[in-house]
């Protein structure tokens, strides 16, 4: 399977935070082709372990495989009232096609009252989430047999390729990160690497970095890189704080990032002539890197960002080349790791 095929397969699969079972199956199967061992930890994160030539040292790569979704809050006669798992802009919801994962997986649509029947004033307002509902076509009598409180709902949108190597799908955040790890594992086949690689597809990032926190505790890595999506520039975003699509991954700097990892990634990118963009993050990065950095006695951590347009919508859009660049960058960074970087992880103290 190519990285693009893998990305299509996992983005079209299902895995709302806490319920990553289906997408996990694909990741397990595809990672196993390039890893020596596959494990699933207690929270459900997948570890693909690829042994190095020396071993003993571990680098953890983390991309999250969970996606945002909706969940049944109440059965209200013949419709479903819902809330979200992860952060949605409620304005994208009216008219959105969805899958309702009840007794069976059923297509549904997010409905609202016809605007024709609303007053001018009502039409000027954002529709509150509790005024929206999902219609799966069942009658009130049939509902109880098919849908229960707590059933999950996902966006019903497939993968589509756009011009110039761009692609759009739901759940690019952060299955694209998982795909870049897949790309990295493939690249590593042709490289020698001393360190053991723990390629981790984490769970529950969208509900508080919960899979990364627990996986990092279990893996106990010597260093880590998290791969997540980052904001790509569009006509409605500010220039400061965004990056450009198809200009290479963002390499993050700031308190969340160990300077030796930042510098190592930059050097590797320059050496391989992989384009990259520097991202400054003054505090909380909001990614798995934030949780991994403070695991146990601390983990030197880096963060790579895949430029992504329209985050947390059913059409998250990115350049496939950026995914490939990100994976190749990590692979060569890993191939360059030896004992010398360990000394650079602890700041040297003045001796006099």
């Amino acid at each position, binding site marked *: 399977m190519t990285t693009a095929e893998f990305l299509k397969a996992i983005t079209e699969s299902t895995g709302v935070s806490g319920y990553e079972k289906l997408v996990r199956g694909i990741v397990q199967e595809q990672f196993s082709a390039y890893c020596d061992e596959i494990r699933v930890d207690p929270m459900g994160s997948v570890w693909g372990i690829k042994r190095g030539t020396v071993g003993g040292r571990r680098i953890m790569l983390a991309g999250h495989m969970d996606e945002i979704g909706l969940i049944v*809050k109440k059965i209200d006669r013949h419709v479903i009232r819902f809330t979200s798992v992860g952060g949605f802009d409620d304005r994208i919801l009216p008219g959105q096609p969805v899958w309702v994962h009840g007794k069976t997986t059923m297509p549904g649509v997010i409905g609202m009252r016809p605007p024709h029947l609303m007053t001018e004033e009502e039409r000027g307002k954002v529709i509150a989430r509790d005024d929206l509902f999902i219609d799966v076509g069942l009658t009130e009598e049939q509902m109880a047999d098919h849908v*229960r409180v707590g059933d999950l709902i996902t966006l019903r949108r497939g993968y589509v390729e756009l011009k110039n190597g761009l692609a759009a799908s739901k759940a690019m955040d952060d299955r694209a990160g998982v795909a870049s790890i897949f790309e990295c594992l493939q690249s590593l086949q042709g490289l020698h690497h001393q360190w053991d690689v723990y390629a981790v597809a984490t769970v529950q990032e969208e509900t508080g970095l919960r*899979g990364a926190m627990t996986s990092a505790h279990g893996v106990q890595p010597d260093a880590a890189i998290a791969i997540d999506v980052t904001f790509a520039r569009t006509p409605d975003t500010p220039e400061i704080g965004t990056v450009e699509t198809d200009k290479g991954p963002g390499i993050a700097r700031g308190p969340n990032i160990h300077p030796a990892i930042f510098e190592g990634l930059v050097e590797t990118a320059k050496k391989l002539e992989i384009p990259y963009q520097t991202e400054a993050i003054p505090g909380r990065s909001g990614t798995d890197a934030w949780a991994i950095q403070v695991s146990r006695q601390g983990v030197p951590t880096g963060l790579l960002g895949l430029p992504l347009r329209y985050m947390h919508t059913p059409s998250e859009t990115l350049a496939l080349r950026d995914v490939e660049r990100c994976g190749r960058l990590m692979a060569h960074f890993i191939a360059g790791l030896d004992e010398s970087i360990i000394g650079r992880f602890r700041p040297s103290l003045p001796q006099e």
Partner: protein
Amino acid sequence: MKDTLKRLTEAFGPSGSEAQVRDLIREEISGLADNVTEDALGNLVAVKKGSGRRVMLAAHMDEIGLIISYIDEKGFLRFGTIGGVGTLGLLGTRVRFADGTVGVIGMEKQDDRSKVPDRASMYIDIGARNRDEVHLRVGDVACLDRPFVDGGSRVMAKAMDDRAGCAVLIEAMRRLDDCPHEVHFAFTTQEEVGLRGATTCAYCVEPEVAIALDVTMTGDTPKAPMNAVSLGQGAAIKVRDGGMLSHPAIKDLMVRRAEENGIPYQLEVLEGGTTDARVMQTSRSGIPTGVISVPCRYVHTPSEMIEMADAEACVNLVTALLVNDISL
């Protein structure tokens, strides 16, 4: 169970000052466990030994409360809150300090009566004539003061959150015999200020499976926030809340045990709020975690209401889980 619940809810125990509740629970569970310990943050853990799974059940002992921030010359006490105390219900409420001192909450003149008063405009009056008559100090804490009311099938009290959960655990301990698992009944501290006791307690216990017992809000009152949980409809099996998602296999196991044993239950999807389960789930390398909730109206007010039959269903669900195989 009702008598236990009355004693528990009337005890004093804002977050960080749980000693009275802890002592009371020690008495209630005396002889019911193989081992009882207390840790650095004041969590009380009672262990029933077994050769099966190591299971942690947690209910928090602490309740919301007030903390003195300033004592003025005339003897009025200004206060901050411990945990999420709504301002709306405070005026005229009585509060009680650890030494039994009772005060009433008063308020400065309000210029705009259409607004919810600001907590900063409120104070506690303990009947002191001046500062010298106040024997309390900045940093002393109070609980809301309200006796337990037995309405028959429905009861109300302060601190039902989460003494109801504590009562369920105690009752389960009483009824449990022949449990194959190593069960750690944890009565935790400081839940209301950030799930702090459970954080260190779960690290200590290192369970294979964890379950929190707490109250949950209902959607069955006039124009309540939309929520499918109702009083009297049985134990609530949590799917998610504002802080965590239950492990699907534990949620499914709970549903199965409830159905096998004819225990009334309802599924819970809560948008805000969370429980000790949030931090137990991410302890160390991660612990499969679920939550059983006692449906409760008027959470975080001095009169939290539950239905005894729901608490009974929670006890039955806990024991049904514990006496059977727990494989996920």
